[in-house]
């Protein structure tokens, strides 16, 4: 890779800067925070992978309702567990200030797609609403309210009336919501 875990070479730094939306400062900060997450044995590996539990201890992700989905979506391992440094940079780049609306909506769609089948069907929407309103029984919506809410959502965003929200419909809704870009942001 051209770099040990403790130091990032200058060439690699500029390459990362070209390939992502992050500035050099942000990449260096990300590298520092990432190496703190690694265990001592992993630090000497050529391409270390930080385990999911360690990543979820980051203060920026700790209280996020979608933290596990975020790690799963950006992970490139077979078992979708743990992030390499490049995965971590991908994550920060997609959530950075300068990422475009297309990229953010693309990743938001993948994060909300709980069963990874490429569309948001009713189960995905139900899990999404439960994630955002609370997990305990008192805070959940009743089944009737949930059904009503999902039918409202589909009425708003399902353009081709097939009962699911696909990526394009999702992006269409997102493009009409000006708050999305400023709220889909995680900064170290």
């Amino acid at each position, binding site marked *: 890779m051209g770099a040990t875990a403790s130091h990032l070479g200058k060439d690699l730094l500029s390459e990362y800067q070209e390939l992502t939306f992050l500035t*050099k400062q942000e990449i260096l900060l990300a590298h520092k925070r990432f190496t703190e997450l690694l265990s001592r044995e992993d630090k000497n590996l050529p391409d270390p992978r930080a385990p999911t539990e360690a990543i979820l201890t980051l203060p920026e992700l700790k209280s996020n309702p979608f933290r596990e989905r975020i790690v799963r979506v950006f992970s490139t391992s077979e078992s979708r567990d743990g992030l390499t440094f490049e995965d971590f940079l991908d994550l920060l*780049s997609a959530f950075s200030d300068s990422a475009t609306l297309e990229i953010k909506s693309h990743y938001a769609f993948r994060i909300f797609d709980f069963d990874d089948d490429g569309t948001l069907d009713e189960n995905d929407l139900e899990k999404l609403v439960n994630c*955002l*309103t609370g997990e305990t029984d008192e805070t959940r919506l009743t089944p009737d309210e949930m059904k009503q809410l999902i039918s409202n959502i589909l009425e708003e965003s399902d353009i081709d009336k097939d009962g*699911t929200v696909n990526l*394009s419909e999702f992006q269409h809704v997102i493009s009409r*919501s000006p708050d999305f870009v400023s*709220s889909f*942001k995680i900064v170290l």
Partner: protein
Amino acid sequence: MGPVICRDNISVLISPRNRVLASKSSKKSRHLSCLADCSERMSLVRSFTLQALDLWQGTMKEVGGSFGSSVLSYFLFLKSLLLLNVFSFVINFSFITVPMLAYDHVPHVPPNVTFRGLELLTGAGYFRYTVLYYGAYRADSSTGLVHYNIQLAYFFTIAAYMVLCGAAVLYSMASSFKMNYVLSDPVGGGSWQLLCTWDFSVTNEKAVRQRKNNLRIQLKESMSERSQGTSLTPAEKMRHFGIHLGAWFISTSMAVGCGNAIYYLTTNTEDWSPAREAETLLVPFVVSLINLVVPLFYSLFNKFELYSSQRRQIYALIIRNVILKMSILGILCYFWVNEVAHKFLCWESMVGQALYRLVVFDFFFMMLGSFFGEFLSKVIGTRWIPGLGVPEFDVARNVLDLIYAQTLAWIGIYFSPLLPVLQIFKFLVLFYLKKVSLIQNCQPPRRVGRAAQMKTIFIALLFFPSFVGSLSLVAYTSWSLTPSRFCGPFKGLDSTFSVVVVWMNSLEKVPAAAWAVWVYANVVRSEIFYFLVTIIILFITFVFWQVTQGRKLLILLLRQQIVNVSVCFFFSKRVCGCWYPALSYFCHLNITRFRFQRFLPIYRSSFALLPPSSLGRKRQDLPA
């Protein structure tokens, strides 16, 4: 189907990155290393300066993490106003004050005037003779090394600052409008939007829990609103209309009444003689008191008035507050321009002092407002009347206060070039005060959303009436009013603008500057030019409007086509096996140009049509 597709995508992800890396490492870049080093150093310097200028980044992150982006927008607004004032101070100081100080750095103070503490409040007395005000600048030909025309410097510095300021505010207003109004859904605020715009930057555990709570309440509210089908009887509609009318009548008459009171107060008490200096504090005190108390009274109307949406309620509150503040300022400006300008010997300095006092009292009352609005509300809400609860940070009211403060500064620049110093100090103290008060006393806002549209409205209010009003006042002063004959850089001239006329006359003798004289005579002073420009702008606006209307119609037609296509697909899949070629022919015929293949259900199950610039990278070469 799912995991396989995703794994394919991962390999798609990895290979372009490796390809880019491989191609870069094989480049023979050794001979460019020197150039690379230099550019590296330059970019480091640039990033260092950008970081140094990125003031308060940690605070912003902390506030945004706990309170969300709508409260954060207040602090960002404050920061940008502070930067405007810093810029104003820098150019005023370097182009106007420093040459004046270099020429004559001892203020010409009469022997019986000494510095007492009262000057800090009134701005009169000892300060009157310092470079703080217009009166201390003189245009006598400097006998130094370089001939520096203070008249032209004064006029052009202030004109340039106003123009640059106006351009900056206009640009940010236009881009914010385009992003947040034109493209946003008018129906919107629906459940889906609430869910999609979950604020990922909130990191505080308690804040996240509270947001989830608030979101649940908002979802339930929006669902019940929809299912209710709000239909009122005609009697109820008349009642609501009557209440609205009454509320607007009361608020407007209060604004007019306050304006009249201020006018009466100023005409009867302001004689501004040095002996009765402390009396001059009465008018700013009353103005600031009105600005503090009456908006609170307006918020009481919320108890009686029922608006169909919360947004309309906020808009109504904002409009009422703006009418109040602008009418008071308008009355004061009318008084200054019509009466003060003819009564006093050095009237610009007098107006500058009045503005100084207004700024100082506005500062004190802003701190007082923070005390009452936040600290006392919290004490009342937690100890005495627990039902009220911890207060929310009222973004609208605070931003309107900031806009008012900036209006005062913009009006005051012509009469007191160093007023931005006071403004900078005020905004710095205000930032830390508001931050502490927010964290100690307030809870995050209960209703989420619409932060971006509010931001657009605030910038629009900053432009009109704030900037436009102050610009028109300064323009009127410099165009129509006679400068005072005994002090200031423009004494002896008919109007401030005459310096340009005089300068142009002197330039006529210089052959090299003939183009400047031509531009002045035929562009700046000719009415035909402005008429033509106005006609062209109106025409372009009309053309763009027609294009927008056409596109709206097109969107409706295309939406209907999508529904038709999916119905067609559903039936044809049932009817015959070879649906793909027929359907694709139909679809490509009509909508190929608009890249609407993505909307077809055919592509629903594959990620093959990734947007080319996706996956966290700015550019890449996807395999076809």
